[in-house]
């Protein structure tokens, strides 16, 4: 037995393990693999299913329900509301992300060191963890044969405007730029945890229960000793089989929205005021340029590099081609007008502006799902307007004939002159359309129980035996793609998990 699914479970089944890890994404897979390698008996529990590389395809109607939480229909409520996406499958979000491996910048880690009052989260202490992770996921630059025209266009635009452009380092082994990162890499090049950490963990004897949603922690005499879950029937989507896992330690790695949702269910008697607070999400705005010539942005790596000229202001720009179904869902036109616009799909350069959060939101428990609330601040809004204007200017500089803007009341700019109207027309935060894929910070790590949720071992201050290893540990936003930072922290937590005899 290595990977089990719904069809394999019997009614009211109990499993035993030394450590149960909930989740198999960037946090869970890494923590579990490290623990298994250290000789622990590890059992993963994953809500999604196992989809081998040979089953991945470029079709959204198959991939979205298979690989994404809630079939991609997840939203953060606020001003404006922000749709978000996260993986729900073995591999978690690493299976459907771009695989960028930017380390958290030094200034961020220095801030973490200051905030926690301990050196553990500083650049020096975390460097060996970053090194270890990067080696295991093959973090390296792209081969020229994998880079597409949209990446070259953005790089050339940045060069002309005198902006700093940096090539991405990605978790990939001989990536050939098939551009299917968002629907799961069908070539096997992207080193998601499905291909890197999970096989490693299984080779050290770990086991994995898939299609099981954990709804409760098992607590005895004030200590976490396991989890209660229900297996999800893939045909009816009903939770119909009770599953229990008894263990000596529990590592919760469900991401920055689901982890606090699970922990908040046990808040009675444990009133940590920080749990679910400090929710950060790196909101993004899409800027789609239409050129008078073919670019075929769907050929070549999904993101070749980033414009980092404005990183000190918390603004990053990059290209990120999405399939036509995703592109069409974001354009504010219907019917034949939508088709007319989509017929220019091969001429589209799909780019975006990421802004580092200056304000935090919250995650609370809704009726039967987490409720994430977050509104951008006036300062973030200003930076979005600036970033969008700058990125659209680059496109016009490179010869774009039209730019689709993320504003409900000004969806199209036909020339650089139109961009002057952005500041005048965009006074309200309600007219900007954002999305995100980076969710962080709801169980912040720290050295003080009043200002953090978990200690520097990753263990909840008020629930011994329960550890957190995912992006919810972040004390502040990282301002860059968080995958490798999550993995580094998960490695650190795994080395500090205490398993009682």
């Amino acid at each position, binding site marked *: 037995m290595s990977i089990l699914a719904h069809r394999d479970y019997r009614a009211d089944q109990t499993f035993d393990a030394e450590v149960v890890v909930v989740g198999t994404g960037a946090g869970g897979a890494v923590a579990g693999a490290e623990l298994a390698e250290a000789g622990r008996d590890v059992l993963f529990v994953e809500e999604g299913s196992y989809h081998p590389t*040979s*089953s991945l395809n470029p079709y*959204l109607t198959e991939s979205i*329900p298979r690989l994404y939480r809630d079939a*991609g229909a997840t939203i953060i409520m606020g001003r404006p509301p922000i749709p978000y996406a996260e993986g729900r499958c073995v591999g978690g979000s690493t299976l459907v992300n771009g695989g960028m491996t930017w380390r958290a910048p030094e200034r961020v880690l220095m801030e973490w060191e200051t905030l926690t009052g301990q050196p553990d989260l500083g650049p020096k202490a975390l460097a060996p963890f970053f090194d270890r992770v990067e080696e295991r996921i093959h973090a390296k630059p792209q081969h020229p044969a994998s880079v597409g025209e949209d990446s070259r266009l953005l790089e050339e635009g940045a060069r002309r405007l005198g902006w700093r452009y940096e090539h991405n380092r990605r978790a990939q082994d001989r990536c050939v730029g098939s551009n299917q990162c968002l629907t799961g890499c069908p070539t096997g090049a992207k080193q998601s945890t499905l291909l890197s950490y999970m096989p490693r963990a299984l080779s050290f004897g770990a086991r994995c229960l898939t299609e099981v949603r954990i709804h409760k922690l098992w607590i005895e005499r004030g200590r976490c000793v396991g989890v209660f879950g229900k297996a999800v029937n893939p045909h009816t989507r009903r939770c119909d089989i009770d599953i229990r896992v008894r263990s000596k330690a529990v590592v919760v790695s469900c991401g920055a929205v689901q982890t606090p949702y699970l922990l908040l269910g046990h808040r009675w008697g444990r009133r940590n005021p920080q749990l679910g607070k400090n929710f950060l999400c790196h909101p993004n705005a899409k800027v789609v340029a239409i050129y008078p010539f073919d*670019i075929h942005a769907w050929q070549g790596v999904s993101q070749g590099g980033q414009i980092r000229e404005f990183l000190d202001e918390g603004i990053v720009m990059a290209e990120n081609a999405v399939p036509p179904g995703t592109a069409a869902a974001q354009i504010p036109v219907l019917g034949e007008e939508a088709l007319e616009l989509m017929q220019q799909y091969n001429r589209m350069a799909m780019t975006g502006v990421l802004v580092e959060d200056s304000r935090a939101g919250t995650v609370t428990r*809704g009726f039967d*799902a987490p409720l994430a609330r977050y509104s951008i601040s006036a300062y973030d809004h200003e930076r979005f307007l600036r970033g969008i204007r700058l990125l659209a200017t680059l496109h016009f500089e490179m010869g774009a004939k039209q730019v689709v803007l993320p504003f409900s009341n000004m969806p199209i700019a036909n020339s650089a002159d139109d961009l002057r109207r952005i500041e005048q027309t965009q006074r309200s935060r309600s007219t900007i359309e954002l999305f995100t894929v980076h969710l962080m910070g709801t169980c912040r790590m720290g050295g003080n129980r009043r200002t953090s949720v978990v200690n520097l071992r990753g263990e909840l201050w008020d629930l011994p035996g329960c550890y957190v290893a995912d992006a919810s540990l972040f004390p502040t936003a990282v301002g860059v793609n968080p995958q490798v930072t999550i993995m580094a922290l998960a490695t650190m937590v795994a080395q500090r998990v205490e398993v009682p005899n």
Partner: protein
Amino acid sequence: MVTSPVLQRHPEDSWALAAPRTVSPRTRRVLLALADAIIPTSPRTETTLTDVTRHALVCLQYMPRSSAIVFLAGMRLLNWSPLWRLRGVRPLTRLSRDEARRHLLAVTRSRWLPVRLLMYGPLGLFMSTYFDQDYAHRSINYDPVPFIEGRIELRRKWVEGEEPGTDQEIHHLPVVPP
């Protein structure tokens, strides 16, 4: 080891899409009317509308129950958008496709955020399903499978020791303007 994906629409990995959510005939009519107004009129096949709405009902099965209920309630509210926008007394199901589309476009571009929010779900679900079909791909000259197959072959050779050369680079731009 390099795996050999088959890139099929319905891959054999012993996993199946959930059965669509059961809804009343009235709700089904509302979904059909909304899909008809949102997606392009052509190209379509005889089953396009039922396929698109069926997939929306499948996706609802993957959402929390409360989200699915809110989504369906939003659809019913959209159906009566002519009434609450004070532009008519008949629901979208009783209007022609063009009239319904005009109403929905106005909702999509409304200055009021909660009103615009009603269109997030149907626009996302119906458009992404429609533009994922082979006939829609053909109409926009998008054909990913041969390209991906070529890239898989390229990687296979690379794994065997043959590193890609400059002739394997991806180039399309005729001229980058000065």
